């Protein structure tokens, strides 16, 4: 089981990581090595074994429909990289045609 440099580049794009070529050259073989190692889980015979998504068998944890105090807008926006009209200012989202 191996992963090509192109596939790693694809993963980087999916993960929104603008890796440089040098980084790709460096990380791709490492990823390949790791993936080969973790593929070991496939050796395990797990027919009919249910997957575990939670360590503890808790179910039905809810809260009541009661309003709680919100954060003040100025605090919410105080850490924002850019603000305009009391909103988070973000660069242009890729335009649709």
């Amino acid at each position, binding site marked *: 089981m191996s992963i090509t440099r192109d596939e790693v580049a694809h993963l980087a794009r*999916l993960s929104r990581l603008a890796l440089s070529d040098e980084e790709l050259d460096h*990380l791709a073989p490492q990823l390949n090595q790791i993936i080969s190692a973790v593929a070991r889980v496939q050796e395990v015979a797990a027919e009919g074994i249910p997957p575990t998504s939670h360590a*503890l068998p*808790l179910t039905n944890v809810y809260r009541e429909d009661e309003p709680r105090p919100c954060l003040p807008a100025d605090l919410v926006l105080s850490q924002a990289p850019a603000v305009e009209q009391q909103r988070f200012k973000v660069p242009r*989202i890729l335009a649709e045609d």
Partner: protein
Amino acid sequence: MSTDLTRLTAAELSDELKAKNVSAAEVTQAHLDRIARADGDVHAFLHVAADQALAAAADIDRRRAAGEQLGPLAGVPVALKDVLTTVDMPTTAGSKILDGWQPPYDATITRRLREAGAIILGKTNMDEFAMGSSTENSAFGPSHNPWDLDRVPGGSSGGSAAAVAAFEAPLAVGTDTGGSIRQPASVCGITGVKPTYGGNSRYGLIAFASSLDTPGPLARTVLDAALLQEAISGHDPMDATSIPEAAPPVVAAARQADVAGLRIGVVTELSGEGYQPGVLARFQQAVELLESLGAKVTEVSCPHFVYALSAYYLIAPSECSSNLARFDAMRYGLRVGDDGTHSAEEVMALTREAGFGAEVKRRIMLGTYALSSGYYDAYYGKAQQVRTLIARDFEAAFGQADVLVSPTTPTTAFKIGERADDPMAMYLADLATIPSNLAGNAALSVPCGLAPEDNLPVGLQIMAPVLADDRAYRVAAAAEAAFTERWGHPLLADATGPNSLSAKETSR
């Protein structure tokens, strides 16, 4: 008071404070002074909150003087791993992408410590987003092991462990996802506990792997760890995965400190090949010691443990690839490339490229891969099945033994730089600790000696069933007492080697 306050345990400080032999201000100042002297070498702290700490201490003193009944940790200093949010201190998770971020809310653990009157000294260094076993993945430089400043203090809670081992704080909070409390505790010669998953609230804990992350205490004694744990543990309605039941009585168990009649199971798969000989030797002696105290020792096999590392390095990166997606430069944190020529998507990618370190990038991509359509069943899906098998191994093993034991980590502290760009080698540090994260049961590390070949600390890992944390404390306290008696002093007193912090301080 002429005693060096930084050499007292939290329990001792608590008694002195209660008896009004010493003030919270004095205790706090003593620790701040210690940090000022030592942290240039240790680099345990990313942020020291001197003003806030002294103000909190003054408040405690005032309330005590007014006759108010205060809890056991009132006035006792504590350090927080920089992965827990604090409204009055920056919180970075060891990452450039959050450099300078000031959270608008306190983590539940932070709030409970403040309510307990504990004095938060500051935020400790860590591997970036808790990914690592050495603190070398911190964006702000590694921490150094007080035993040997050229060596790692372990990770990812390396800063917390180093702070405690360097006497900069009697107590610290860390988080353990694959061993990140226990392994640093082991290589720093202190005690660290991973409670049963859900035992401590994750609200305000910057998530790495949600189904594995567990906050817990680090301290120089088992009793101290128990005191801290009781102050922060308990159900939290803000965390849907927090345990609803009452917390196990760990302080009482730590005081009980006995093993007579208990069955100790040595896990076959968690020692042997890949483990440093001196580590195995000390482990073996620890088992014999427990036997001499009246425990019955058996060997138990947990056959699926050999797959634990692989399962972990699929599950944790998968969850983290999703948890770290929010760092997209839109609402907080670093923003790179917003010069009018880049789209939002490009700014996200440029920011994450600049803001994340190599290990984080590796794990994000690994997780993205494992969750991909077409790969999910073979990787993530399979890993979750292995998780079930590991939990079943534990169940079976706990049918034969009351607690399970192993060395905490295969080696003593390695040198800074030794494994830095060798991910697979770094991952091996978690071999023995990972199974308990996957199954969610309680596990801790308590010092059990120095490896003969390098005179560096070795940790004994004690694992207890889900919700039976007290049992682990009980055994650990017994071992600690017996060891201390055998050595004549706590292990940390031996941290005087040629390259240690102690040696450096003495030579100044």
